[in-house]
């Protein structure tokens, strides 16, 4: 079977998917089937929080794919995440219909507020879910493709590439901050009502989104693992370790980079699309360069080039962040910086590397 073939020799992946399955089923049951007030009940708040972590896990896999395996340190993956989120947000805005503050059935509230008379052309079609679903993948994918085509063809690598990915996400942030762009300016898109006809405030919808995130993470993991198990995956690692040498045995390095980079951006877009209905808002802050740097820290903490390590890192760091920002918010950035330095110096292969080392010592 395909599944067993993909997960052969991948103990970490097997454990991750089993843990994911158990958590998803348990959490869903404890939220829906156990009455509120019961000791075992899991609140909808927690379900949504976990769902958010899972979308971060998917995003981290996308980053690990290009950084861990291909050696491209992208500091702009937050942009693809945010674009997927905006595409989903536009669909959710259109679902509001005439239930907005101004009650205008044709225009979202912020456009009425700006005195716009009609819907801009790039909002057309977003009232249909299938169209939005395509855009969620197409927009980040296309941006990554064009960006990658230009950057890889001119052989921009290393630090320079990282800097222009930062510039990319920064430029997008500035653009999305502007009201005339037509994406709600600095308020972004919010006040969503329902998705596919289901009330976004309902517990069952929240659980549904949580399960969808778990499913997306599992499928994303499996497809990345499939790619990395293939010969193309070995070519990717070859490019990471000796790019020139790979060229001289006849591989078109630029093309390999371009396709994997684009695929990774699409995964990030899907993660963003699942994130937005759970947190209920998308605004230009998601494009902030700092967000993209944080992603890299997740992957570094978990352990590069393992895929499951990225998920562990994303969940662990975000759990810490949730805790920290509630307890001592002003320290979070320092904690993040310290964490990054600690990991780089003490755990160059992340938590997963540490576990592997401990296991080896035992045997």
């Amino acid at each position, binding site marked *: 079977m395909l599944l067993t073939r993909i997960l052969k020799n991948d103990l970490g992946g097997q454990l991750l998917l089993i843990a994911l399955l158990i958590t998803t089923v348990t959490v869903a049951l404890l939220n829906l089937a156990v009455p509120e007030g019961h000791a075992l009940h899991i609140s909808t708040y927690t379900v949504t929080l976990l769902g958010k972590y899972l979308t971060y896990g998917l995003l981290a896999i996308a980053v690990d794919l290009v950084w861990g395996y291909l050696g491209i340190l992208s500091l702009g993956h937050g942009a693809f995440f945010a674009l997927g989120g905006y595409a989903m947000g536009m669909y959710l805005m259109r679902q509001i219909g005439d239930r907005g503050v101004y009650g205008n059935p044709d225009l979202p509230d912020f456009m009425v507020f700006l005195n716009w008379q009609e819907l801009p052309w790039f909002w057309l079609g977003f009232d249909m879910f299938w169209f939005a679903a395509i855009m969620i993948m197409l927009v980040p994918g296309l941006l990554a493709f064009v960006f990658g085509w230009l950057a890889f063809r001119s052989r921009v690598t290393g630090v320079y590439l990282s800097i222009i990915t930062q510039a990319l996400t920064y430029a997008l942030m500035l653009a999305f901050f502007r009201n005339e762009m037509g994406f709600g300016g600095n308020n972004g898109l919010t006040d969503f009502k329902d998705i596919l006809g289901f009330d976004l405030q309902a517990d069952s919808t929240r659980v549904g989104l949580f399960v969808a995130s778990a499913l997306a993470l599992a499928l994303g993991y499996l497809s990345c693992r499939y790619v990395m198990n293939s*010969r*193309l995956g*070995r070519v990717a690692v070859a490019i990471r370790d000796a790019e020139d040498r790979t060229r*001289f*045995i006849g*591989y*078109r390095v630029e093309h390999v980079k371009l396709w994997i980079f684009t695929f990774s951006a699409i995964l990030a877009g899907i993660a963003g699309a699942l994130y937005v209905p759970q947190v209920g808002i998308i605004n230009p802050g998601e494009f902030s360069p700092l967000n993209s740097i944080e992603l890299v820290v997740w992957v570094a903490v978990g352990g590069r080039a393992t895929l499951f390590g990225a998920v562990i890192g994303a969940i662990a760091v975000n759990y810490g962040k949730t805790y920290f920002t509630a307890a001592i918010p002003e320290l979070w950035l320092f904690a993040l910086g310290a964490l990054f330095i600690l990991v780089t110096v003490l755990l160059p292969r992340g938590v997963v590397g540490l576990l592997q080392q401990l296991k080896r010592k035992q045997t």
Partner: protein
Amino acid sequence: MKQLDQVRDTFNRDQVWRFLQPRPKPNELDLSHGAILYLESISVSFDGFKAIDDLNLYIDAGELRCIIGPNGAGKTTMMDIITGKTRPDTGSAYFGQRIDLLQMTEPEIAQLGIGRKFQKPTVFEHHSVFENLELAMDSDKRVWPTLFAKLSDEQRSRIEEVMEIIGLQKQSSQLSGSLSHGQKQWLEIGMLLMQNPLLLLVDEPVAGMTHQEMDRTAELLTSLAGRHSVVVVEHDMDFVRSIARKVTVLHQGSVLAEGSMDEVQNDPRVIEVYLGE
């Protein structure tokens, strides 16, 4: 500058526009005049320093050619030009009669059938010996076919055959990063064999090898000549003497002398710049 040349080229009225000319395929390699590689009046300078200076060199199909020359003579740079890594300032480089190497990228040149072993052995350190050979294997190297590629029995036995030739069967699943220097050299030669190229460029193959290993390398390279054309750059004179039929001496970026080992060794200019040191 390149753009300017392209514009000029477009106004050249005695030939069909270059982009309309059919791209020759490797199996159409035209060897009708006996030579597989033509380098003509090639010059290259780095920041004003002429690394290659009006170099002319012809390699015959099936020939085994040794190239010697003191450090910095431009031997590696010459290989860089043939494989598309460095673009010369002037001159022309043809593979067979028709294929203009200067118009092609590194992977295209590799696909045409020019394989290269580097002076500093570079293998993929995080891949096993087997995987290194698999990656080098002559196959469809575009993205999608590579994603869905499966190793056929034939290909697997070819890899095993090459592992036997290079004496690394036992290390098949060992990471190549943990091999010794000499073993890495052999692995690179193995990767070259897997590509099954028409022309092999071998830069200092025996550096770091024991005498026994050297003998085996000599045997291997001579056995390749005939079916393949082989260009070997080497400093070790004993090694060169053991395989050489025709020797070219490079000095300051151009050919100083060419002939059999004895002729070359007795050439007073060669003695002066090189052997006499």
